[in-house]
């Protein structure tokens, strides 16, 4: 068979040349807001911090095996209420200082310090009681309760004690822009980019000399720059560009496993939006099918769509997703009008009023989301406008989003955003009255009860049931209009090899990344 003989003649391989001293330039969704892992608020932050710091334990990107680059031995102690850790010797911080057990305990104490305003740390406060050094490289971390698998819980990044004056760490320190870690790269944030320089250490041996993180911008420009070879990667590829890149021989599309869902958060403190019938009406005004088609390019009936509607705060593939709660793919203006009238709103001159005041909705959107869903803010505004609401729209930069919107200090009525999760899909902080990321201070006692039930659940089934009930409740109460989940894809030029992307953390395996010049 002629064809088979041709294939059998496939001879030796001309290997490419390993480029030493290679620099990788890549586009990110935005610049990081902080390189201090205690204050990471965005996925950009998480990915950047992964280059600069080591986590005590991490999961292998391929086999999920629990590993550590900095722990040489561990031993469960005190009948499961503590873990004794021996750190590897010879690891240095980026300033040359040796890493010791003092750094590990400092990190724990900083997380426990009430003067450290860190949401990341707050999660560890719930089960870590303290840390004591037991030698230059040994420390004992104590827990508030018996933990069956403590290593899996200890995924925090280690901080250098000598770089801080106290365990009360402020997010405003210079450290957040110019951190010192033990990771494969030393990072420094400039005005328009972040430069990561390789740092040789006993436990890291990256081939890449330098990474340059650039803020993405116009999606078309990002793609052209990638195809032209001026950058080597794009972390989040706009859906509309994926087909072209998939067909390219010079670029490889790669999955980035991340659970993300999009939403419109509703300011329930606004008198016009306090009545849930108004929120339910907004939910019926938003036409998700149209939004998805116009902004992401997914047509109705498209198979294998990267964008799937949701009816609650989980992706549909999650065990927590309540499949009995239907999505609302299309608008229903008649029913929306009915709900608005029953809530006491009146329509005058085509505009909805509360009393004699026309309703103007101030709508904000995380600006980088526009790269994935072009003109989403305008489309949502148009749909609300057509339905009789005046509106003002504005895009919100990453810093303002973190510092004002998520912290509940904005004056928006609606904000469009995206939440991302790893394995743990806990949403308590989003919807609990005391939730640390409860954007508009939403409060509902039944929701609080369900969230507490989730926290207190003894069995897995109880936990799942609590979140199923939560899903149903939130789909009715609608502190958020739940939009969709959108798969995330990255693109890297084919000369970048060994680029295994870790779910959620992305750059955990950066040591194996290399550039091969063909």
């Amino acid at each position: 068979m002629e064809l088979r003989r041709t294939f059998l003649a496939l001879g030796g391989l001309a290997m490419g040349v390993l480029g030493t001293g290679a620099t990788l330039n890549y586009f990110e969704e935005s610049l990081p807001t902080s390189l201090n892992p205690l204050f990471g608020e965005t996925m950009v932050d998480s990915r950047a911090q992964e280059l600069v710091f080591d986590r005590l334990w991490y999961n292998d990107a391929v086999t999920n095996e629990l590993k550590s680059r900095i722990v040489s031995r561990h031993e469960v102690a005190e009948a499961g209420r503590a873990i004794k850790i021996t750190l590897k010797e010879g690891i240095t911080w980026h300033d040359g200082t040796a890493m010791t057990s003092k750094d590990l305990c400092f990190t724990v104490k900083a997380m426990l310090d009430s003067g450290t305003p860190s949401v990341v740390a707050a999660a560890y406060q719930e089960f870590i009681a303290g840390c004591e050094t037991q030698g230059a490289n040994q420390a004992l971390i104590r827990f508030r309760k018996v933990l069956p698998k403590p290593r899996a819980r200890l995924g925090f990044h280690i901080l250098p004690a000598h770089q801080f004056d106290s365990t009360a760490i402020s997010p405003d320190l210079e450290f957040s822009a110019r951190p010192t870690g033990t990771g494969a790269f030393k990072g420094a944030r400039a005005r328009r980019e972040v430069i990561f320089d390789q740092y040789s250490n006993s436990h890291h041996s990256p081939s890449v000399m330098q990474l340059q993180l650039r803020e993405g911008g116009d999606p078309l420009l990002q793609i052209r720059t990638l195809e032209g070879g001026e950058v080597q990667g794009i972390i989040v590829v706009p859906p509309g560009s994926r087909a072209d890149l998939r067909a390219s021989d010079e670029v490889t599309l790669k999955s980035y496993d991340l659970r993300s869902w999009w939403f419109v958060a509703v300011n329930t403190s606004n008198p016009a939006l306090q009545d849930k019938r108004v929120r339910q009406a907004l939910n019926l005004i938003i036409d998700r099918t149209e939004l998805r088609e116009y902004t992401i390019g997914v047509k109705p009936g498209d198979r294998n769509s990267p964008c799937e509607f949701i009816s609650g705060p989980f992706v549909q593939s999650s065990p927590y997703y309540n499949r009995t709660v239907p999505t609302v793919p299309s608008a229903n203006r008649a029913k929306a009008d009915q709900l608005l009238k029953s809530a006491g709103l009146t329509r005058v001159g085509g505009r909805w009023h509360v009393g004699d005041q026309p309703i103007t909705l101030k709508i904000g959107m995380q600006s980088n989301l526009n790269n994935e869903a072009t003109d989403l803010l305008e489309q949502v505004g148009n749909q609300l406008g057509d339905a009789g609401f005046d509106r003002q729209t504005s895009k919100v930069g990453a810093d303002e989003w973190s510092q004002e919107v998520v912290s509940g200090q904005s004056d928006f009525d609606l904000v469009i955003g995206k939440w991302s999760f790893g394995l743990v899909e806990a949403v308590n902080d989003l919807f609990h009255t005391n939730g640390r990321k409860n954007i508009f201070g939403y409060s509902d006692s039944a929701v609080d009860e369900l969230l507490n039930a989730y926290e207190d659940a003894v069995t897995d089934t109880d936990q799942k049931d609590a979140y199923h009930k939560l899903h149903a409740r939130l789909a009715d109460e609608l502190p958020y209009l739940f939009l969709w989940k959108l798969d995330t894809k990255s693109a890297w030029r084919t000369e970048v090899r060994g680029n295994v992307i870790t779910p959620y953390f992305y750059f955990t395996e950066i040591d194996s990344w290399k550039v091969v010049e063909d």
Partner: protein
Amino acid sequence: MVGCACGGADLGEPRAGGNPQTTLPHYRFNEQTERRAEVAANDPSMLLALSEWHLDAAKVAYPQIASALPLLMSSWRLPVDPDAEGALEKDAFAWLFARSVLCSEDMLFLQAVDAAGAGAVTEWADKSPLAAALAPAYNGEKVDREVVLDQSVRLMRQAQAAMVVLSGGEAGHHRPFALFVRLGVLRAGMRMADKAGQYRDAGILRLEALERMEGGKGSVQRDPAFALSVAAWDVNNRSPLRPEDILHNLIPDFPALGAARTPLEALHLRLNRNAAPSTPVH
């Protein structure tokens, strides 16, 4: 033939176009807690019986294929199944359509890898195109996964070029079919790496094959059996997120896969409770 009575349930006579008589989940029982919440579970031996039922139904649908089935099904044989022998008759070549093997020698090569290890590539390099592509990736002991990745692209391009020659010009269907060739190299390399004890390298090749397979809208390369095998591999690694996504994407077209949801969700929930804390990130 399997008109199986399994676990006390009669699956019914295998018949073309039909489905075995069973209901899922197989068991429902209550937790030993105050709330006595209901838990669902499936019986894996019943699932094996179901797969045998479908195999017998296929034989009923097309009895002429019986002699070629052992070789065609060799990718899915159980360790207790005997090795397939011989080659496919020309009139059975059509069964290779849209598969990641190029000829029956490729299947025999893969069977040899399963039986004798990665070193079988040397013996088959002059008979099997996949073996020819993979021979440079094997140094006698180890499989070089980067070479496998490169060779998968090279063979794909060769196939595409050959199609152009045979067709007298480029056509839109060339690339999708060339992708099958690439997948073939990746999957064969994966099996070699597995047999060579290179679990992680095999994993990287496995995930690369999955990635290349999911080619976007209505991807013709989508192989639910392979995707499911990747999901099972992830579950073995106690990593539930990707399997959940794989299953979720396949279930609309293959509803029977819903059987896997129950235990997978149980795994996720269990892991969730012992995982490092995290908060939602924007």
